[in-house]
């Protein structure tokens, strides 16, 4: 089993990766946008799952998905330096927690997203996230 690492091990140059299923973008004309809907799911209040670039590449994140092609999932990335800047500038109640799983050492949670702050946080995250290189989904 992997040990959890403290937040200070997440360097500003690191990234968090997240798979975005086609259900979220399949009817779009193009995937130019990063939409706020990418940052919420049924379990978001228990933590929104990402993969940490220290132990994962965007390709690894894609391959862990059941639908492991760009027809089924795209991969977005959040730079930790930008995320920390936003947390301070906009007073976002977000924390980063390394939460490794037996099959995924990179698994990380963003904590603090709730129903009561969902609109602001999702909007801010959508502004700093981008598709990882060569990981934009194919529509």
């Amino acid at each position, binding site marked *: 089993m992997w040990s959890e690492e403290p937040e200070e091990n997440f360097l500003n140059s690191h990234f968090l990766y997240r798979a975005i*299923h086609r*259900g*979220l973008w399949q*009817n779009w004309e193009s995937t130019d946008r990063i*939409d*706020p*809907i990418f940052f*919420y*799911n*049924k*379990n*978001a209040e228990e933590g929104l799952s990402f993969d940490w670039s220290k132990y994962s590449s965007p390709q690894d994140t894609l391959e862990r*998905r*059941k*639908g492991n092609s760009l027809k*089924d999932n795209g991969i977005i990335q959040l730079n930790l330096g930008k995320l920390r800047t936003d947390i301070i500038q906009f007073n976002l109640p977000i924390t980063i927690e390394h939460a490794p799983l037996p099959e995924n050492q990179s698994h990380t949670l963003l904590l603090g997203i709730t*129903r*009561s*702050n*969902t*609109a*602001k946080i*999702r*909007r801010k995250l959508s502004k700093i996230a981008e598709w990882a290189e060569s990981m934009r989904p194919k529509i």
Partner: protein
Amino acid sequence: MKESTETNLQEIKNLFISVKATKERRLEKLLDKRVNHILNLSENWDDNGAEKFKKETLERVSNLLKKILQELWDQMVDVPFPLISPVPDGSVDINWETDKFELLINVPAKDNLLVNLYGERMSHPEDEVEVRINYDMATQYVIPWLIKVSS
């Protein structure tokens, strides 16, 4: 002279009514398309446990958007149609992203939960809004804000 002025006023009024009717038809078409798409999403549509959408949630979204836009049109304020997007927890986003402002309204799946909205006006940080509000009160907050930031 008086008769000519009255004729011109009537023509302007007719034009206004016609433009509004066209916008209302476009809105109905947009809502039909988006609502049907969202209602047809099956359970687990995000492959991560997403919920199926309730008809009542989409009705609340449609009614809210119609009220907002019709009031704005009545006041001669023109804003583009927003994006209407399904959120995996069963709520729905109404999302404007324009050059002047951005506004995200999240309408929850349960009617006892508050509508959550966040808006920013470009280059005017003093007009930032973050509000949790009862569904029935939402238009009273959103419409004046949209009028202000659209000017």
